[in-house]
Structures are given as C-alpha cells and as structure tokens.
C-alpha cells in the first residue's frame, strides 16, 4: 500500500512537469495523418483528420463519447480493417511510409504499432505465455534464453515483474484489473514496437491502478511514441504533451497539452474543457 501511495504522489509530481512548456513538436514526426476519413457503411464517422504525432511523446485524443477519437486511433494500426463495412480514406504515414499501401503487410505493421485496449484483455494463458506470444509469432527470440530475457525485461518495463515473478506460470486472467492492464502493456512492449496506441487504458480501473498506469505511461514515453485516447481530461493533462480534441468526427483543435487546457482557441474545445459538453 505504501508503495502505491508513493506512486500516486510521484504522478502528481509528473503532473507539474507535464505542465511545463516544452514543445515536443520539435521532435521528429513519426506519424502523419492527412485528410483521414472513415465510413461505416453509409455513415461517415471521421471527417478529414490531419495530425502529426511526434516521436517519444504522449499524444492524447480527447472528446465526448462517439466523437471518433477511438475510430481514428484504430486507423493507425489498421484495426478498422477487421470491422465489416469500414472504409478508410486519406493517408496515414509511419516514418513517411503509407500504412494503407497495397504492398504493406498488416501483420508487420501491427508488430511496429502495438495496441492496449480499453478493457484489459490478457490471453487465457499463463503470464509468461501472454508476454512471450508476440515474440514467438514474430520469431523475435532465437532460443528459450532469449525469450526468457524478453519476457522478463518487458514485465520489468511494464512495472509488473516484481509482483508476478513467482507465478509466471499462472494464468494472466487471475491478476487484478490493473495488473492485467500492465500485463497487456508488457505484452505489447515485448514485440519492440515503435508506437503504442492506448484506447482508454484506465477506464476500467480504480484510481490507484490508474495512477500506476499513468506513471508507467510517463516512463514509457522515453522510449516509445504513445498515442492515448482518454475520457478523462485530467488524465490527458497529467500524462500527455500534446492533445487533440475531437468532436462529432472532426478534429477541432490540437496543440500542446498546456495550451489546450489553459488557452483553448476554439469555442467547442472551451465548452468541453469547462464541462459544458461531453
């Protein structure tokens, strides 16, 4: 409990540092989206989204329910491909390479762009196998020792190793909600992705587990480009350097997190942040 309390405190310190203005757009741009549209059948869910996502920083997508922020996130690793009748237009480039190109392999793309989902969804397998699954299917480990090393280091990076090191063979579904979500993050890290997409990763967790994950996100941004969709404006303020506000399928405003929250230009952004819509 003490350890957790410490983590909460540390996160509130991070909150201060996140508020300090440092323009992360100086960093190289990893992802560029231009005029991205999504149709589900006849219904248009996204209207011409254009955004740049900088390297090794946290970009948050905020907005009311049904605003299209998750839909856009799922375009980035082409998870929308799996939805019947979804059609994506415009271009999204990862390091200048069009991810919707004909010859691009989705399997390889998803190894480069990992994803963490809203509800923790560990595989109904052991903790070890959960983390080892990605390296196994992508052939990243040459032998068992390699694999063990990847699993341990991924669990460490996800801040879970100390808690589970004695029960790696036990099922991942037996962990608490927060641990499960960190297991999912470890699972995503194990493949060595460049970008990690997080779709409301804390919405199913209690405040303490949320604080732990937020701190983890803050640590991870040193090595990974992170895009996070969140319902909670406080969370966006705490963990992100850049924020984009979505409303009714449009990208209304984007900028440095501090600017968006203290000095929003657009009236709709203002209303949302003040709690008048949402």
């Amino acid at each position, binding site marked *: 409990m003490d350890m957790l309390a410490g983590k909460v405190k540390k996160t509130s310190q991070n909150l201060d540092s996140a508020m300090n203005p440092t323009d992360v757009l100086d960093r190289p741009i990893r992802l560029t989206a231009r005029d991205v549209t999504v149709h589900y059948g006849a219904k248009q869910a996204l209207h011409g989204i254009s955004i740049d996502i900088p390297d090794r920083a946290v970009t948050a997508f905020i907005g009311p329910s049904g605003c299209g922020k998750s839909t856009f996130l799922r375009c980035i690793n082409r998870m929308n491909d799996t939805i019947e009748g979804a059609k994506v237009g415009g271009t999204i480039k990862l390091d200048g390479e069009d991810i919707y190109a004909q010859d691009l392999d989705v*399997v390889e793309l998803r190894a480069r762009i*990992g994803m963490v*989902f809203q509800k923790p*969804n560990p*595989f109904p397998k052991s903790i070890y196998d959960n983390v080892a699954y990605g390296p196994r299917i992508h052939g990243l480990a040459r032998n068992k020792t390699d694999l063990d090393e990847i699993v341990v280091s991924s669990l460490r990076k996800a801040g879970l190793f100390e808690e589970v090191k004695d029960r790696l063979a036990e099922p991942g579904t037996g962990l608490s909600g927060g641990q499960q979500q960190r297991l999912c993050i470890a699972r*995503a890290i194990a493949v060595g992705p460049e970008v990690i997409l997080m779709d409301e990763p804390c919405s199913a967790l209690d405040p303490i587990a949320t604080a732990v994950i937020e701190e983890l996100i803050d640590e991870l941004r040193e090595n990974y480009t992170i895009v996070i969709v969140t319902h909670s404006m406080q969370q966006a303020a705490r963990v992100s350097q850049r924020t984009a506000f979505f409303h009714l399928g449009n990208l209304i405003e984007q900028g440095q997190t501090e600017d968006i929250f203290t000095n929003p230009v657009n009236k709709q952004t203002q209303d949302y942040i003040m709690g008048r819509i949402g």
Partner: protein
Amino acid sequence: MATDIQTSSSASADRRKLVRSGLRRRHLNEQIFRGLGIAAIALALGFVALLFVDVFRKGIPAFIQSNVHLAVTYDPAVIDVGPAPARADFASEAEFNAASLKWQREVALLNWNTIVEASLRKALPEGYEITSRELLAIPETNARHAIREKFVSDPSLLGQTVEVDVLASANTANWVKGNIDRSLGDTQQQLSAPTRGLIDIFEENGTITNGFAWSIFTNVDSRSAPASAGLLGAFVGTLWMMLIVVVLAVPIGVAAAIYLEEFAPKSRLTDLIEVNINNLAAVPSIVFGLLGAAVFINWFHLPISAPLVGGLVLTLMTLPTIIIATRGALMGVSPALRQAALGMGASKTQMVFHHVLPVTFPSILTATILGVAHALGETAPLLLIGMKAFVASVPATPLDQAAALPVQIYLWQGNENRNFFEPRTAAAIMVLLGVMILLNGVAIYLRSRLEKRA
C-alpha cells in the same frame, strides 16, 4: 414546512397503497409461473423415468439365459467316419488340406441330432415317454453344431463322454422364465405337454440352469437359433459407422464452421449457404437415406448394407449440427480476445488457431459428441440403404455387410417369437442407451475438465 412534509408523506402513502394493491397479483403471477415450471420438469422427468423403468423391467430378464447341461457321448456307431487325416501321411500341404476338407464334410453330413437326442435321453427320468421331436425342442437348434465343432477340433473325443453346456431353445427359455402363460391350453402352447413337463423336471434336477447371457455380446444375430441371437455384428457395424462419422464429419464440419465464421466475406452467397445449412439440419433423416441410396449406392456403386454407406449418410446428417454448434461457439468468443490477438500482429489464422479454437474447444467437443450420439441412434436412413437386411456376421471392414444397433432393435421388435424377442429387444435398447449414456458422460467429463483448465 411542516405542511409540505405532510402533503408529501400523504402523497407517498397513496403511492405505497397503489404499489401494495398490485403486489399480491405480482407475487401470485410469479408463483403460478414457478409452479408451471416445476410441473413441466416433473412431467418430462416422469416420462423419462417411465421409459427407463419399462425398458429395464422388460430387458433385464433377457440377460439371463437357460443352458442345458448334457453328458455327450461321441458314439463311434454314429460317427462312422475314418480317423482325421494327419499331415504326416501326405506328401504336400495341398493334398493334406484337400483330405482335411473331405473329412470335415463327412463329419458335417453325420446326423448329430442323434447324439444330442441320446445325451438328452440319458438325463430322462425312468419311464418318461417323449418323442425325439419333442425332446429336441428343448436345446437350441444349433446345439448339434456346438457338439460337432468340439469333435472337429479334437477328433480324439471319439468314444468318450464329455460334459457340454448347450443353449436352451427360445421356447424352452420362455417356459422357464415364465414369458408364456402356463395356464394356456395345449393348442396355444409352443411346446407339447411332455416337453413342458420334462423342462420342469430338468430344471429341478439341474440339467437346465440359468446363467448370464454373454451370448448377447459375443454372438451375431440368428434366425435359425433365436436363443443365440446376439448384438456383436450390429455393435461392430455401429462402431464402424461412428468411426466414419467422427473421421469425416468432425474435421469437415469444424473446418467449414471456422471458414464461414472467421474467413468468409459476408455476401449474399455466404448468407445463402448459411440459410441452407440451417435448413439441412431440419431435413428429415429419411431423406438423407434416400439421398444415400441414390448417390452412394446407385451412382458410386458402393455396396448395399455396408457401414461405409451408413457412415457417409450419417456424416451428411451430422454435418449441419456440427457446423451450427461450432459456429455458435465461435460466435460466443469475446471480441476482446480476437482484438488482443490481432493487435499483437497475429494473422487471422494464428488468431483462430492460437486463441479462438482453444477457448471454444470444449463446446465444439461437446457438440460433436452429442451429434455423433444422435447419429448413433438414427435408424430411418439406414433402412433405405439396405442395412435392415439380416446379417449374421461381424463386419471385418466397412465394406462388408453389417447391421446396426438401432436397426437390430427394429428387426428384433418385428420378430414373430414375441415372447422371446420382446425382452431381447429391450435388452438391445439397454445396450444402445448404455453406449449413448457413455458417450454423453464422456462429453460432460471432457467439457468440465477442459473448462477447468482454460
């Protein structure tokens, strides 16, 4: 302020009165529904219990058979064939075989009933008057074969007397077990009065004894010797068919379900296929029999009455069930698991085989076993592909003629010796039910085990 509280509390009292007035009716409705539910379950269980009690009451006596204990003398006066040929007397194997066959033919042509009759007469009480025809009605007609086989396998028995147990005839068994009304007059009895009297004497002095009827499990069907009719041929025929159903229907059904559910694009064609599979599951089984007769027998020229054809027909019949059940199981897998796998960069095939199938395996297995168990009891289609023929052999391959358990029940049910075959039919039903309960038990066991592991 005080009046406010008063008005609000009087309003709430009114509301409570309204709610309360409806309460009685609501509780009553619930009680009626519960009562109906319990009644429905009691009725269903009652019918099942009635069925089981009836079948068991009739069937259990059939597992007891009556044997006649004989002291058989291999009388040289009757068995006047030369000594069995010995290999040493012949130059070649072929000559020896020819001589052996000739000797066996001579042995077979002897009147072995004379020996059976002589053995029976030895057991007769002093001065009991009975014709040989009446006497020979006591053992089953194949008693002479049993005694002859003993001699063929050991020709040194010539001149000796050995103790042999032979099966009592079906009519004898009826009389012993009381399957026939003893008060009926001579004209309505299947056995003559001296025979019936002798059976009673034999039972008293231990010449006729009762024992467990292993013959039900070790013998094939028989018409000339009904008391020896068993289920072995039908059981093996059914096993062959089950093997074919499991080998064909399970992989094809599961693969089809996986493709339709996971890979096939949603189009008008797949919709049409889906509707047709659902319809196929509702097609009367006899239609599958007609189809089997037309396609497998008339067109492919596969043999009539063969378990292969039966297995193919039952496969067709079971396929829709397996496909529908498997698709249902696949549909039930949470999208979160699929997304987790795809999000990790698993290909669709990897997603299905690494994650979705292991989770659904218990349900697929249960559905499959239940489908196979259903096919096991299917009779109508088998009648149409010739499996109702009388077959008195154990099929060594799926291409041999064979009977099947449910068809054997149908055939025995129609046998004219009602007194004897009604219990036999019930016994066969017990065996079939036993196999089904075994299969269902395996399904339940595997399911609970696998679900615990997952």
